[in-house]
């Protein structure tokens, strides 16, 4: 199966089993650089797809938690090259992995070399929060040579025509941002979030995962009724930085 097909397929398995797919996010090499692969294994056991954050100095779409984890990971010496090397050396992780990175570290690596190394490391797709579809041609072409997926974000502020375009362009899944804001919000989900997710679903031919500000089992259940999966980022990073067992938290979220 092609790498980006693995993402959709893993999410569809959850849907077929009648449960909400879980996409945990963790910042690579945080809180400890040495424990990265061990933490990833643990998180991957309870995730259908795992999103791995590549740290960046200026994460402008992220709230305080992911800013903190990002800066600490950089201070720990984490780089994109190191992440890919670690992933390439890790065996037995069967959960599809996607990298979340701001554009500049990808540019510095070089798109063509990145696609090759990422494929070798078992990465199936990318999420790039500061790369709108209109600017993504060159990166998409590079990913296409290795059949890696480019996952598009859509938000409640996305107009209808644009929503259709982004849904058609996205590969693996569609990342439906629940609030037009930054990650890690602690406020309640917007009241019209379910209507919005229904709109996204109606445009989508691949799974839809909802993210930003998801931190409780109630929210997972509410969002899961209107989306195929949920992405849990800041709340999980907070558990990890407090030294807590991610498996307990992730199981709680899906009501186990």
């Amino acid at each position: 199966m092609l790498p980006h097909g693995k993402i959709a397929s893993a999410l569809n398995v959850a849907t077929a089993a009648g449960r909400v797919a879980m996409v945990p996010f963790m910042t690579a090499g945080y809180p400890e650089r040495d424990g990265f692969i061990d933490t990833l294994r643990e998180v991957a056991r309870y995730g259908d797809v795992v999103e791995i954050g590549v740290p960046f100095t200026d994460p402008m779409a992220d709230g305080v938690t992911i800013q903190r984890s990002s800066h600490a990971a950089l201070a720990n010496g984490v780089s994109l090259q190191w992440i890919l090397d670690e992933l390439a050396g890790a065996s037995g992780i069967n959960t599809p992995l996607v990298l979340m990175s701001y554009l500049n570290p990808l540019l510095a690596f070089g798109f063509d070399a990145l696609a090759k190394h990422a494929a070798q490391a078992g990465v199936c797709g990318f999420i790039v929060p500061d790369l709108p579809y209109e600017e993504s041609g060159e990166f998409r072409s590079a990913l296409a040579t290795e059949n890696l997926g480019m996952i598009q974000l859509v938000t409640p502020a996305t107009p209808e025509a644009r929503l259709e375009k982004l849904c058609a362009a996205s590969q693996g899944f569609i990342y439906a941002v629940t609030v037009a804001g930054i990650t890690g919000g602690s406020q309640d989900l917007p009241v019209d979030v379910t209507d919005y997710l229904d709109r996204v679903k109606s445009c989508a031919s691949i799974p839809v995962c909802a993210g930003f500000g998801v931190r409780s089992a109630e929210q997972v259940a509410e969002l899961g009724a209107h989306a195929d999966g949920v992405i849990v980022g800041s709340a999980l990073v907070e558990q990890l930085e407090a030294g807590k067992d991610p498996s307990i938290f992730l199981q709680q979220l899906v009501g186990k």
Partner: protein
Amino acid sequence: MRVDLTKAERKKLLMQLIAGDLPDARGRYGPFGGRYVPETLVPTLERMERGVHESLSDETFLGELDRELKQWVGRPTPLTFAGRLSRRWGVEVYLKREDLAHTGAHKINNALGQALLARRLGAQRVIAETGAGQHGVAAAAACARVDIPCTVYMGAVDIERQAPNVDRMYQLGATLVPVQSGDRTLRAAIDEAFRDWVSNHDNSYYLLGSAVGPHPYPYLVQRLQSVIGTEARAQILAMTDALPDAAFACVGGGSNAIGLFHPLLADESIELIGIEAGGRGTGLGHNAATLATGRPGVLHGSYSILLYDDDGQIQETHSVSAGLDYPGVGPEHALLQATGRVRYVSATDTEALEAVHECCSAEGILPALESAHALVGARNWARENPGKRIVIGLSGRGDKDQPTLSQQSSDTNDTVEQPRSLTVP
């Protein structure tokens, strides 16, 4: 995103820029520019782009802007013949006095224009970032003038070194938010302003202070700042009946430089020189000489020249002048460097501090530390070009730098009260 342009491409792009055909429909200045923002802001920027084009071709809007620039900002600012600097340097020196604009720097030209635009577009609040505090003060004043609440993000390091401007922002009614994240200077303040805007895109207008950021900001800021170069060109023609041989401006993000240079691009005989912050000297982290030592990358919404390491991580910069302490530069400058039309050099902290003192004692003008970088570039150029006529963009006044200037003089002298020993012929 190829940036190694052929000679023919360079020539063509410069012609397009002069003809007003750049940025293109995608917000590009050749390879540079574009719109690299979180998805939430894409529709917001598309709406804003339409608003910018409508406003800048609307006689009513332009008429109000022009009236406010005259009555409230105090434009045109003078072009001052600097007689004693001229004698010292052996060239004819003219200073374009943006320090005399309301609030004390060129920043007000842009802040006023964008505040009027924010009101026209129906914004309920304005967000701004500031480095030296000049843009924060200008934004606070302009928002008070057009009656829109204003929130200013400022790095904690900058709050400390630009204390006088912090007080002014409070007086003008702005809400000031100290930024403790990242490098706690201008770059972190822009990150934080963007986060606010992403979260409040439906009711807020982001009043960006330099010629950087996603399309249409670099274009909008250039349009609003071009009043500097347009006035200077007319003034020097009226005073001397000739164009200058060269023009100089400091470059951080590059708004005052683009304002002076853009209207002079078509005058091929005028050499254009931008001066970046050379800080403590060479090496990543010791300066903010982006164009001299950077490479292409993406930060704060556009593809331009940046300072970053081999892993793509943005570098911390150093400059004695907060307004130039930034690891990026506007995309139009990146193109102007690539085409060769503008040459970019740097001035060190020490040279800039000396230039402040020289300008004070020779001309009775206290320039901002930022503007002092332009004086250094001009003085160095003058050594090789005696007898020529030059215009220097004096982008702002130096009152705000008193904490730094006092600190520097107590660092270099044992006594706090040290008389200036510079003698002027």
